[in-house]
């Protein structure tokens, strides 16, 4: 019994470690012209873990990951929490369908999920005060969908090597 619980703590820690990698990626400085293209790796990681390991990463896990990200970026506290929680919920409902989709269908679904998360954050920023005025804001959902296959392969290898179910 005790062995089982340490095992599950280990699993949660290694998933959290992957998110720390995503956080670092999100704040690495880039030149101004490339900033818009940075894929939303945190949301992609939430999508991956919620679809491939729903026993470990659920709505609550995604919510706390999002809160951590809010602290890191100084966004309105709770905005990323809410959006990644909702993305986790949507992904868990879509996850069986996501497996049998073709590549272009996956592309569309991932793009829509990231755009949905961005839309929620945009609404909150509009309520609070100063939303980003540029249309480039939406570009990151496309780049996220483009890098999804890479993220998927890397996280799949990571997951299999640690035998997380």
């Amino acid at each position, binding site marked *: 019994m005790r062995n089982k619980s340490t095992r599950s703590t280990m699993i949660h820690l290694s998933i959290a470690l992957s998110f720390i990698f995503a956080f670092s990626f999100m704040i690495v400085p880039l030149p101004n012209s490339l900033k818009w293209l940075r894929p939303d790796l945190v949301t992609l990681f939430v999508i991956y873990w919620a679809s491939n390991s729903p026993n470990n990463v659920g709505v609550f896990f995604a919510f706390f990951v999002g809160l951590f990200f809010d602290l890191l970026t100084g966004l309105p506290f709770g905005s990323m929490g*809410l959006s990644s929680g909702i993305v986790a919920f949507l992904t868990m409902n879509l996850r069986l369908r996501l497996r049998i989709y073709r590549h272009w269908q996956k592309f569309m679904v991932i793009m829509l999920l990231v755009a949905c998360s961005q839309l929620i954050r945009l609404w909150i920023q509009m*309520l609070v005060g*100063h939303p980003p005025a540029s249309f480039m804001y939406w570009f990151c959902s496309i780049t996220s969908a483009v890098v999804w296959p890479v993220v998927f392969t890397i996280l799949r290898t990571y997951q299999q090597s640690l035998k997380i179910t």
Partner: protein
Amino acid sequence: MREPEHGFRLLIIVLMSCALIIADQRSERFGNIKSMASFIVYPIQKIVDLPIATLHEATDFLVAQQRLVNENNYLKQEQILQQAKLQRLAALETENQQLRQLTQTGSQVTDNLLIANIINVDPDPFTHQVIIDKGRHDNVYPGQTIIDANGIMGTVSTVNDFDSRAILITDASHAVPVEDVRNGLRAIAVGTGSGCLELRHVPNTTDIAVGDIMITSGLGGRFPVGFPVGVVKDVQHEPGKPFASITLNPSAKLDRGRHILLLQNKDKRHNGGDIDEE
């Protein structure tokens, strides 16, 4: 079968997020709790900063001696020039002081300076902000002005124990009262969110021309007087609109350099708490 359970969890986090967002905007005490919680993200910022800072140090270490000698000579000359200018400045300052006493206006002398470094992280591409490596332990306070060698950079917005966050003058939520050096016209320079500033509510007939230097006017008491803010880049008079549209290039080099200065204005310390919003 597990559907309703997830739905219930979703409901809980929606309610929690709403509560957090409202508390974040409204309550000052919540801000303190948040800044205490921020120390858990500090290691991540450090991890990201470390390789870049190490790279800077490594290039410093590996630089050729000849270049260092040249640079040293140049800096020495620069130092002499600056000191010559400073001598005149000291005379001017005392003269200014005397004139102010004659006209019975209070003197506006600033201040102590604190040197800080920018931590190399990009928090969010859509807000213009920087994270600096000085916090409450070095008496940084919200509302403090940060400058670089060329002009005003921005305002400290949140202070944690060991680091703090500042919004830059080009951020859409930042505004600074300015005045034209050439003729003393006053205006408000508001960030646009895209690397430059604009002057708000300036009538079409006002005499502001391309190339004018704008300095802080000190009105409102938040920014010290006389620091350069920007240079007028473009003036457009559109017929049918009541105000001219005037854009400024910031004087400070906002996207370059690691070192910044924090102005410490002792009287204002307890004044600052909220940030200038337009």
